[in-house]
């Protein structure tokens, strides 16, 4: 065994460059893989832990204010809930902090404890007076509001001021960047802040065991039938909230897993190429090893060991790095859930990954090394290296017919002289380029979707009115501004859609909403009252297809609706409706717009406009420039994609470099002959570069459709996880020149990587090489 180690170590020292390539590729693959697996195994747990710890509600239902609280309380027994909280009086209030205004659902509760929805106070204390309020930590952090800050309520005429006395984590709602938020006050404080159209009761239910989606729908159906019609204003399940919490990590995990598999496949290809190359170039050495007494098995061990040793180090560093890299994301999840962060990883899992990585590399190295073990000593000594076939001949002839310079023709032939090696190299290039395509495309798709959600470029100012300030006055103020080019006003209403358990949030527009930038996935945007558009999840749950008519219910009154298009909307994970406000003309009480998307004339000063309109009624109008920034989770995914693309591209370059290095070393005798025949150093470099360039070009050309398909699939996976289908425009984010430029860039990088072996070959001393025969 000692002899095997000594020989393997000696070989490792001699092949330092190749050992470095192995170390780096295995390191990248293991780091990405470990991050993915750690996230995957740990992200589900924090939510469940927090849900249990805070006795989260499996079902939350909002009731209209005219519903009898006694009846509401009785629903817990009706649906078989094992525990309940409420009914809590609640009201949607608007408050002003600094020059900004916010909406929250203020809930009246005496204390943060109880049988359901225990609120985890992370800062400050629970309110003890009617002018005190507690906010969610997520909301406070997002909007930079601290304990002690004072908030002026603007949704009631008295405009009372509240003091923030605490921050809590509530397991029963999503984070502030993705969901509307609650705030808590003493129940006695609520009446003074409520208006008839903003009040409701909130009830939390908890079941003996975690119910499934259909079980929850059944319970909700039972609950509705036990109350007067129209009593239920809305409902929320723990499944939806869990999805909202986990969606970022789920998407991230999916992306990481996909690309970790890529990285591992590329690593296997590189290891196999490398060992094959070493075996081919070491025929004579193998013969000598056998002659001095190495058994075939020991020869295999020597070759496998010199690969496994750097891989061992890479796995050690990679698994550690991957575990560390996953921690900020896990810490983020823990923070959002109000859990104290502690390093979250599994030593067992890490050991498994470590062993798995080594095993994969060892197998990838051993299979080609078997060839070395099976060689007959005398054949190996005599032949000195593996015979070469006529691989690459057709390519060379094709290149010659194109009248390319001879060094280029020779290089092109060399690229595929060993077809298996070329194929393995193509795999690494293919995966690298495909990942780059995805990394370029997905952020653009995200940006398009983000722009559609935020109306980027479509409107510049968003005005929200308090219920104390009439719609007509807002319109008068806006229309009086010379810069106002278009105003689209909107309001909201919950609509019951047949087949869908939860009331559906519906956005009602007045004005040309087709110009707000919503993306139409299929069909068309509505053009008349009665017509609606909806995202895929709602269409799926309601079994609706474009062209279908159905009867919705708003405030207990029927509405004849016809679905004319599918749109993209991530709010409520694709459960929303869009229609003209005139569709609700027959519904009482009448729905009035409260939000105004204002498009300014080109060249207008947005800040000046905002200041001027806000000054008209500082307490009752919230005027701000449209926020088109990308939400944090998308930024994280974009960053991870960028890193992965860099890693995979590096592995791809490593693959080409490795192959060109092997080819160049293997063919150094031919190169020396060519130099003896008059090939100049520059021509040698061109020859080696052409070889690398062709591999990268072929890999790149094959990778483009693969990358585009992957971009397509990932778009669909991400859209589907948010309850939508990908709009066609989100696929078509590449310019024609980019489809050419990306593979060409790959060619350029590969040629640059080939310069090292190319220069080495160009500097080779002909006499030494030829005399070494």
């Amino acid at each position, binding site marked *: 065994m000692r002899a095997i180690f000594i020989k393997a170590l000696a070989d490792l020292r001699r092949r330092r460059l190749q050992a470095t390539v192995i170390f780096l590729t295995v390191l990248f693959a293991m780091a990405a893989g470990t991050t993915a697996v750690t996230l995957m195994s740990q992200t589900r747990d924090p939510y469940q832990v927090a849900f249990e710890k805070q006795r989260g509600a499996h079902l939350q239902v909002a009731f209209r204010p005219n519903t009898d609280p006694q009846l509401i309380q009785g629903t817990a027994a009706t649906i078989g809930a094992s525990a309940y909280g409420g009914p809590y009086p609640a009201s949607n209030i608007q408050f002003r902090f600094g020059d900004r205004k916010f909406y929250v659902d203020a809930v009246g509760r005496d204390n943060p404890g109880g049988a359901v929805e225990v609120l985890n106070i992370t800062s400050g204390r629970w309110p003890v007076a009617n002018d005190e309020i507690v906010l969610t930590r997520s909301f406070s952090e997002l909007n930079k509001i601290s304990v002690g800050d004072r908030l002026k309520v603007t949704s009631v005429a008295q405009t009372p001021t509240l003091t923030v006395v605490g921050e809590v984590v509530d397991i029963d709602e999503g984070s502030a960047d993705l969901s509307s938020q609650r705030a808590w006050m003493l129940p006695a404080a609520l009446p003074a802040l409520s208006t008839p159209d903003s009040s409701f009761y909130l009830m939390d239910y908890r079941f003996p065991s975690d119910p499934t989606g259909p079980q929850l729908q059944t319970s909700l159906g039972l609950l509705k039938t036990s109350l007067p019609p129209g009593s239920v204003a809305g409902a929320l399940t723990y499944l939806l909230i869990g999805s909202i919490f986990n969606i970022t990590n789920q998407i991230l995990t999916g992306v990481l897993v996909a690309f970790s598999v890529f990285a591992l496949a590329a690593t296997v290809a590189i290891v196999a190429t490398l060992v094959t190359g070493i075996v081919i170039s070491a025929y004579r050495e193998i013969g000598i090893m056998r002659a001095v007494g190495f058994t075939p098995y020991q020869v295999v061990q020597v070759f496998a060991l010199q690969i496994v040793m750097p891989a061992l180090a890479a796995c050690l560093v990679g698994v550690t790095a991957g575990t560390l890299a996953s921690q900020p994301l896990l810490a983020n999840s823990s923070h959002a859930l109000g859990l104290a962060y502690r390093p979250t990883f599994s030593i067992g899992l890490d050991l498994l990954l470590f062993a798995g990585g080594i095993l994969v590399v060892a197998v990838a190295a051993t299979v080609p090394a078997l060839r070395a073990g099976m060689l007959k000593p005398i054949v190996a000594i005599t032949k000195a290296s593996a*015979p*070469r*076939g*006529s*691989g*690459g*001949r057709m390519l*060379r002839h094709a290149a010659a017919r194109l009248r390319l*310079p*001879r*060094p280029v*023709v020779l290089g092109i*032939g*060399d690229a595929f*002289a060993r077809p298996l090696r070329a194929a393995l190299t193509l795999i690494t290039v293919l995966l690298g380029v495909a990942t780059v395509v995805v990394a370029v495309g997905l952020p653009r798709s995200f940006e398009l979707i983000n722009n559609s959600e935020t109306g980027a470029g479509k409107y510049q100012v968003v005005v929200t009115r308090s219920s104390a300030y009439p719609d007509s006055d807002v319109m008068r103020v806006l229309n009086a501004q010379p810069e106002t080019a278009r105003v689209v006003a909107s309001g909201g209403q919950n609509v019951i859609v047949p087949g869908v358990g939860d009331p559906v949030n519906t956005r009602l527009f007045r004005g040309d909403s087709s110009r707000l930038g919503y993306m139409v996935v299929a069909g068309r945007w509505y053009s008349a009252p009665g017509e609606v558009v909806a995202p895929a999840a709602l269409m799926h749950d309601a079994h609706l297809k474009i062209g279908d008519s159905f009867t919705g219910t708003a405030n207990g009154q029927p509405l004849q609706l016809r679905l004319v298009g599918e749109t993209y909307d991530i709010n409520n994970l694709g459960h929303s409706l869009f229609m003209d406000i005139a569709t609700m003309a027959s519904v009482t009480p009448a729905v009035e717009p409260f939000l105004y998307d204002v498009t300014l004339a080109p060249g207008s000063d947005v800040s000046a406009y905002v200041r001027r309109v806000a000054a008209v009624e500082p307490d009752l109008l919230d005027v701000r420039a449209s926020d088109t920034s990308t939400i944090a989770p998308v930024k994280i995914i974009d960053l991870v994609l960028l890193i992965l693309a860099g890693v995979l591209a590096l592995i791809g370059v490593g693959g080409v470099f490795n192959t060109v290095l092997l080819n160049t070393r293997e063919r150094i*005798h*031919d190169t020396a*002959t*060519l*130099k*003896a*025949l*008059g*090939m*100049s*150093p*520059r*021509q040698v470099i061109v020859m080696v570069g052409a070889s690398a360039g062709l591999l990268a070009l072929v890999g790149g050309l094959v990778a483009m459709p693969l990358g585009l398909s992957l971009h397509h699939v990932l778009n669909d996976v991400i859209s589907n996880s948010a309850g939508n289908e990908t709009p066609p425009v989100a696929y078509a984010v590449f310019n024609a020149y980019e489809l050419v430029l990306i593979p060409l860039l790959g060619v350029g990088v590969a040629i640059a990587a080939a310069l090292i072996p190319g220069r080495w070959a*160009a500097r080779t*001393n*002909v*006499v030494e090489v*030829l*005399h070494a*025969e």
Partner: protein
Amino acid sequence: MDGRTFFRAFRGGGGGKNGMSELVRLTEVTKVYQGGITGALNGVSLLVEKGEFTAIMGPSGSGKSTLLNLVAGLDRPTSGSVAVGGMDLGKLGEAGLARFRRDNIGFVFQFFYLLPNLTSLENVLIPAQLKGSEATARARELLGQLGIQDIADRFPARLSGGQQQRVAIARALINSPTLLLADEPTGALDTHTGDQVMELLGKLNRDGQTILLVTHDAKLATRHAARVISVMDGKIVDDARLESPERAASEVIRVRSEEASR
């Protein structure tokens, strides 16, 4: 000049005849390899005229191949100068030397050194293509002249040693070099095939091709070359102009014996 070959030894920087068609001039050339205590060549001076068929003889390690490599511009002298066709090779860079070889030198190796993944025809064409010229017709003509036109599309692995060396000679001639260098061209061949190859070189020389041949086989050298230079321990120990093959053989063999017994 008799129109066939003009040759003469050029010792210690002694003058050659002005106005002669000088092709190769080595002046006090020394070559010491890295770590070498003794030089591979020690102060060698030599003049080769155009049209000569010169054989350089010597035992293994005598420096004869080093001399050939220096003339080909494959290696550089430690001191002294090498000029071919009036061109001082010491003044050329790597690229310049490559162009020089491409334009002026044809090289025939002991082990042929054909590129295994190219056909015979493609191997022959390589030097021309490196110059940027297309010479398929001339390559086929050369293969025909060497009697191997029927193996043009075969790969080296499917050729006999003699056929491979003929392909190598055709490759060496494709650019019509002013100087053909042959390093033990029969060393890897059987006697019969070796004779055929030497006949071929002789014929080329008779057609005007200057040839510088390295061999350790005295009989082979004297049978075909008109001038035989003996090298021993990095020095030229004899430079024989052979009037006739018979005299040459006995003369050269005698000199070799004397040198060997020192």
